[in-house]
């Protein structure tokens, strides 16, 4: 079991800056996030898109913003638990006990939920019978590519993941690439490579087709794909891969007694505490009158929520308000050495 002061759920910009705000008032925290990298929506949805409304930063991409936030919290040597989703939150005496889907347990005085719109999960096929083949013959991510050797693989999608895997698997497998329109949004070099492999019959491309149904009881025999004009084509295949990007799912947060209002957690605007004492919510996931879903609002909310945690972590102490420009305490927490 990991014991610390505060657990932050979500490693997006709001959660990262909140690490900083906890750090300068002397509180320790750890961060859990379901993605395999730090940065949340900034890194997953728009790493290359410039953002223009971060105060004092005229222009920054999602990736640059994330890297700067990581640099800013470096002095606090925070532990990140990536690829991990919080499943259960339970009150335990004066503390909170938190369990993740990997079986990790935390015991903390406070929890700050900076979960955005929930955790990122792969978008799945909408065809019902797909579920029973999932993780056996239908995959949304690849853990062991060797299982496809000398088999027929049907890959759906038009982005980089679909293209990259189609190209790579075509070396040792028979590959079909199926996409709902005739343009691919992957990198230009991959599209060129794909066309080349298609000319050599290494990859068979079907455009304007979508999955319609699957034949097979225990194992997939073939799939039926439907063209825009309604025509159905049967394709023999052993495996089916879907790369439709990630969607955000609220997941277990709905079960933590937080009185959700349309996927959002109501909070007060004094310290962004939820209905549960000691649980705070900041960033896109919280709601209150006038809420704006902006990164800058998340920063403000995190600053106040961090101070809101103080009374739960150190019930017998009073928090003294200090500036980073003048406070020796704060500067030493930031690892700044000054020669007076």
């Amino acid at each position, binding site marked *: 079991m990991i014991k610390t002061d505060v657990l932050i759920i979500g490693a997006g910009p709001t959660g990262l800056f909140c690490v900083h705000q906890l750090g300068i008032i002397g509180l320790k925290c750890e961060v859990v996030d379901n993605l395999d990298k730090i940065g949340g929506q900034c890194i997953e949805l728009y790493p290359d898109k410039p953002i223009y409304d971060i105060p004092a930063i005229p222009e920054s991409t999602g990736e640059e913003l994330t890297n700067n936030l990581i640099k800013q919290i470096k002095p606090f040597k925070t532990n990140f638990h990536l690829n991990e989703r919080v499943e259960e939150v339970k009150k335990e005496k004066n503390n909170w006990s938190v369990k993740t889907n990997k079986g990790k347990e935390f015991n903390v005085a406070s929890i700050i939920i900076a979960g955005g*719109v929930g955790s990122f999960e792969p978008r799945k096929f*909408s065809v019902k019978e797909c579920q029973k083949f999932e993780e056996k013959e239908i995959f949304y991510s690849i853990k062991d590519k060797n299982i496809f050797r000398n088999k027929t693989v049907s890959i759906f999608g038009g982005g980089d993941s679909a293209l990259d895997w189609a190209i790579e698997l075509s070396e040792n497998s028979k590959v079909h690439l199926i*996409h709902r*329109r005739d343009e691919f*949004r992957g990198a230009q070099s991959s599209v060129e490579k794909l066309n080349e492999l298609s000319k050599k019959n290494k990859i068979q491309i079907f455009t304007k087709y979508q999955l319609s149904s699957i034949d097979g009881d225990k194992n997939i025999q073939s799939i039926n794909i439907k063209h825009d004009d309604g025509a159905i084509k049967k394709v023999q295949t052993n495996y089916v891969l879907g790369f*439709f*990007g990630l*969607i*955000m799912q609220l997941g277990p947060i709905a079960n933590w007694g937080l009185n959700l209002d349309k996927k959002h957690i109501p909070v007060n605007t004094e310290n962004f505490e939820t209905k549960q004492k000691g649980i705070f919510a900041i960033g896109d996931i919280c709601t209150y009158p006038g809420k704006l879903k902006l990164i800058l609002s998340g920063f403000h909310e995190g600053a106040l929520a961090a101070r809101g945690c103080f009374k739960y972590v150190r019930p017998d102490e009073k928090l003294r308000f200090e500036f980073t420009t003048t406070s020796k305490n704060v500067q030493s927490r930031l690892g700044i050495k000054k020669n007076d």
Partner: protein
Amino acid sequence: MPKITYIEHNGKSHTIDVSNGLSVMEGAVQNNIPGIDADCGGSMACATCHVYVKEEWFDKLPKKEDGEEDMIDMAYKPKKYSRLSCQLTVSDELNGLIVNMPEKQT
């Protein structure tokens, strides 16, 4: 004010006045019409405000910008006349627009 009609997957229809300048997505969200999630808040970064428009309307709507089609690739059951409602700005020309919502968004 332009009237926009939102039809849920179960057939339930809602016709409401939406101010010029708002997006079709905002019209739904502000009026608590179920079926449009708009998880990213309208930044064209998810595909959870996905709607189907009728063929005759599809040609009258402003053309898709770069990126919208890419996001529609990730929508639930995309079709030929799919749009993201956050990218449709309400104006007098859109008076009478009918959008159909998919069975679900995620």
